[in-house]
């Protein structure tokens, strides 16, 4: 049965279509694996009866003649997506036990496609963090090395897929929260163009950056599931009015002649030699496949981190003002008047990182500082986005490292916010621009921990990016490596 758990989404779909396995059997298999690996702390809420009801429904739909590559395939949601049948907490004490009256659009889309939800996945509180250490419910362990972080904020999603306790998981990326954990756990993490998947029902952190995406075994699986997640949603005010598309259409396309831009700024001082070596070897694979590797420049990319730590906290301070202990969420037991109740409820319900970001945001938006910080950050954001547009006149996709190092150990950066923020040095520029980007496994570095290769493409060019990733995965087998014991 463990072999079945190693199967990709595409393979599981074929087995279901051939009636070699039922959705209920698959749900039972993965629920048992989740239970057997509870020490990873990847899941926050598992309700077998709800999962099995969805699986029975998928089997019924198939018996009635419905087909569909995803019908009956199990998956799990990052606990940033609200769900009616599982608690939705954003890994915060503030929302402990919160039951949403509705499902997020992405949840609804994958349910319509017939996918079976295994439960909700741990993450950094309100998706703020790069190590999953900011979860109010404890950190997730990296299946490759239980002394290492699984990355963040989508650490439950990355660990679950790496450990094969879920074949695919949703995730969200604001500054690198899909790509960095995917790199740290040796899996494929995909962030599409900002505005393509709906934000409706994603607990908001920074609304001009928040993007839903996926953790999968492979680019092929990402293309398959992503095709069900895109499309216009009138309920999301920044949803792009553009039809869904087949993201798998370029998978078979050879990369011969593909122009791959490599930003020289991503290989400067600070990049760890083990990561550099694996990434350069991956570029050699592309060269061997006939792609043209050319150096490009993104001179302002390093300003991404300072810009991000103005823009994201500003938006976060506004979004998280809704948590006041009045309509939902934690309310302090002991308090004075209404204002004191709100202050104490927020002090008790929110963890240190969300509080820190709310304070930064409140400051940069406050009277007298708005122009110097917020407006300035928005201008530099434009410079960074424009640089990508210039780069894409010279190349079709951009490739480079995802992170400066392999996964770090628990506690290593926990007392030092700025060093933690640098984990997203190479992922934040693409987030600020809003372009699609992904991480694919490309080897192992220090202590045998995985290394990720980052691929980026221009707006709406997901299919080309996924095609380039798939061609690499046809030529290599890093994405098929599974940590020992799983």
């Amino acid at each position, binding site marked *: 049965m463990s072999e079945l758990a190693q199967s990709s989404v595409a393979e599981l779909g074929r087995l279901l279509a051939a009636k070699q396995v039922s959705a209920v059997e698959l749900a039972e298999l993965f629920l048992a694996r989740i239970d057997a690996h509870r020490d990873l702390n990847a899941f926050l809420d598992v309700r077998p009866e709800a999962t099995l009801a969805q699986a029975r429904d998928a089997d019924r739909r198939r018996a009635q003649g419905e087909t569909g590559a995803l019908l009956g395939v199990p998956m799990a949601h990052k606990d940033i997506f609200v769900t009616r049948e599982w608690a939705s907490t954003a890994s915060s004490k503030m929302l402990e036990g919160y039951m949403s009256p509705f499902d997020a659009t992405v949840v609804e889309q994958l349910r319509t496609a017939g996918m079976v939800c295994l439960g909700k996945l741990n993450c950094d509180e309100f998706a703020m963090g790069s190590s999953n250490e900011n979860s109010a419910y404890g950190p997730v362990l990296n299946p490759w090395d239980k002394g290492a972080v699984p990355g963040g904020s989508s650490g439950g999603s990355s660990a679950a897929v790496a450990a094969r306790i879920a074949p695919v998981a949703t995730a969200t990326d604001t500054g690198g929260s899909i790509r960095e954990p995917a790199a740290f756990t040796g899996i494929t993490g995909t962030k599409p*163009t900002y505005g393509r998947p709906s934000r409706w029902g994603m607990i908001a952190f920074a609304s001009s950056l928040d993007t839903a995406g996926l953790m999968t075994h492979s680019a092929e699986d990402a293309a398959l599931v992503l095709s069900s997640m895109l499309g216009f949603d009138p309920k999301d005010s*920044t949803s792009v009015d553009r039809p869904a598309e087949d993201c798998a259409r370029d998978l078979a396309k050879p990369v011969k002649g593909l122009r791959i831009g490599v930003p020289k700024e991503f290989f400067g001082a600070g990049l760890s030699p083990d990561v550099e070596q694996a990434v350069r070897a991956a570029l050699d694979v592309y060269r061997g496949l006939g792609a043209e590797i050319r150096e490009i420049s993104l001179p302002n990319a390093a300003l991404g*981190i300072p810009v991000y730590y103005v823009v994201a906290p500003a938006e976060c301070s506004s979004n998280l*003002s809704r948590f006041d202990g009045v*309509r939902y969420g934690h309310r302090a037991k002991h308090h004075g008047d209404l204002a004191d109740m709100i202050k104490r409820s927020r002090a008790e319900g929110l963890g240190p990182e969300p509080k820190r970001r709310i304070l930064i945001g409140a400051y940069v938006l406050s009277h007298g500082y708005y122009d110097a*910080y917020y407006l300035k950050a928005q*201008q530099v954001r434009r410079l960074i986005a424009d640089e990508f547009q210039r780069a894409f006149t010279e190349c079709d996709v951009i490739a480079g490292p995802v992170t400066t190092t392999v996964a770090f150990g628990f506690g290593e950066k926990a007392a030092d*916010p700025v060093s933690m923020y640098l984990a997203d040095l190479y992922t934040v520029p693409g987030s600020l621009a809003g372009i699609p980007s992904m991480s694919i496994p490309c080897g192992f570095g220090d202590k045998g921990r995985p290394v990720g290769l980052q691929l980026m493409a221009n707006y709406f060019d997901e299919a080309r990016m996924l095609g380039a990733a798939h061609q690499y995965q046809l030529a290599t087998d890093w994405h098929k490596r599974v940590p020992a014991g799983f």
Partner: protein
Amino acid sequence: MVTYEASSDQAIRLRFPWFFPKILPMPLAIEDVARIAHLARIHISDEEAQRTLAQLNDIFAMIEQMRAVDTTGVEPMAHPLGGSQRLRDDVATEPDWREAAMRNAPAHENGLFLVPKVIE
């Protein structure tokens, strides 16, 4: 659940010195932290404010390098794909979730949210 000591990463400070400038032109003072916490409606203890002060000054020192960039004439980017806010027809579209929503309220009565007395 795994337990660990929170420490600070010295190696990264050496590898990326420019993100860790020693001097911040206008560092925040403890009164600033209290003022911001009030703006953000977050209760903060004196001890927490002290710890937060040091971290915020680290973060604002890192942010300084962005403020040095010449952005004359650059249009601010509020949203990756630009465009204006979409308007929809002015019709009720929300289903009635009242009961499901009230179930999450910390205190409620007769379909109303309860808060401490506001008007004496």
